[in-house]
């Protein structure tokens, strides 16, 4: 009989475990004992008592907030230059950010989609598959390259060098954004190997990106707890895969990516 992992027990505790887990705990003494211990320790976590807010709290929040808000109508007029004031800044920034995001999604999503399309057309006997694929492989390969470099840097990052750690962190933040995009696209494109690897990678990137003051100890912890070596290996395997795809489409064309 395979016993439940600690992880499965935590899921079970929070009501997200599978039916089998619950049945197993009922049937297996060993797991039942461990589960009881886990339940006891988690139940013992004292609930945080949130200070009660009176009925007027919402009104007070609103009173403090209201003077800071610019009506939407006026903002719309501002676009034509009638009443340009402080509010245009964030409006323009939001719009610019929105456009940039849209472009990024269209670009990366579209590229990936093209690769999938190229693959389908390829198998359907399309004579000209190489028109789109190489570029796409470059886009994904670039992400994997950067990721690989980051993981290698992480393996060797044991100094107290704040600048180096800050660079690692800013790279992780950037990669986190593009990684989300690739992961979602890979998932939609039914590519479980890529989606799975990107998923695991995302956990590592989020840890590095979100740590307020990254120390050598933090990096060591990420390395040991999140199996970064294993992920690095996966990324390298995926890179060979994408490179192979690139080479196949390039064969006979002379151009190399």
């Amino acid at each position, binding site marked *: 009989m395979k016993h439940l992992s600690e*992880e499965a027990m935590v899921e079970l505790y929070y009501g997200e475990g599978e039916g089998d887990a619950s049945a197993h705990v009922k049937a297996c003494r060993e797991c039942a004992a461990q589960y009881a211990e886990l339940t006891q320790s988690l139940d013992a976590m004292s609930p945080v*008592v949130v200070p009660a807010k009176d009925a007027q*709290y919402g009104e007070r*929040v609103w009173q403090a*907030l209201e003077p800071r808000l610019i009506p939407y109508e006026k903002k719309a007029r501002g676009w034509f230059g009638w009443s340009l004031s402080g509010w245009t800044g964030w409006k323009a920034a939001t719009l610019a950010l*929105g456009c940039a995001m849209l472009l990024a999604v269209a670009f990366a999503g579209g590229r990936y989609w093209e690769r999938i399309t190229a693959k389908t057309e390829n198998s359907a006997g399309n004579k000209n598959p190489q028109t789109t694929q190489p570029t796409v492989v470059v886009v994904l390969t670039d992400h994997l390259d950067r990721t690989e470099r980051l993981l290698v840097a992480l393996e060797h990052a044991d100094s107290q060098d704040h600048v180096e750690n800050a660079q690692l962190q800013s790279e992780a933040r950037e990669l986190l954004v593009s990684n989300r995009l690739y992961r979602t696209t890979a998932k939609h494109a039914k590519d479980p190997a890529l989606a799975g690897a*990107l*998923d695991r990678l995302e*956990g590592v990137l989020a840890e590095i990106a979100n740590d*307020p003051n990254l120390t050598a100890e933090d990096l060591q912890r990420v390395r040991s707890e999140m199996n970064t070596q294993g992920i690095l290996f996966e990324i390298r395997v995926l890179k060979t895969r994408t490179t192979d795809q690139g080479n196949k489409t390039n064969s006979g064309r002379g151009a190399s990516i």
Partner: protein
Amino acid sequence: MQENDHSIVRAVLAGDKEAYGALVHAHSGSVFRVAFRMMGNEADAEEIVQEAFLRGYQRLESFQQRASFGTWVYRIAVNCALDRIKRPGIEAEYRAGDESDPEEKTVQVETQDADPERALLSREISAVQERAMQRLTPTEKTAFVLRHHEDRSVSEIAEVLGIAPNAAKNAVFRAVQKLRRELAPLRGMA
């Protein structure tokens, strides 16, 4: 309620700024609750509430009508709090708080015991728990607060944090592991 929220959002976007007040009244309680659980003190939590509703107003055009406004602004609040926790200055203060004043920390957790000795013990446990919480990474801490105290599902946590469900699940798991390890010496005391 949700339909009502949607019509309020439409009114605000059409220029009725005052209508936003109704959304603030309706959701400030739940936003304050999660902000307090994440920040651990009332003053910071109140600032997060302000910031979340302000950001919500400024981004209202990106609010999807199929979503719930409550969930949307909640998510903004969690991210405001996460940003705040991540800021080095605040974090240093946060960690330094460990040793400063155990009394202050322990007022936040429930002590129902009338017996002064038990109350003292329970305060001690709370202080250890609070310290253990501070040792989590911001992501782990957020994931744990949302899962354990706010009863949010792993997929909701993933959505709030903008990470994959598996990464969210792992963050909860790591938090539980660490907390159990830190709190292990207390087992049997309570």
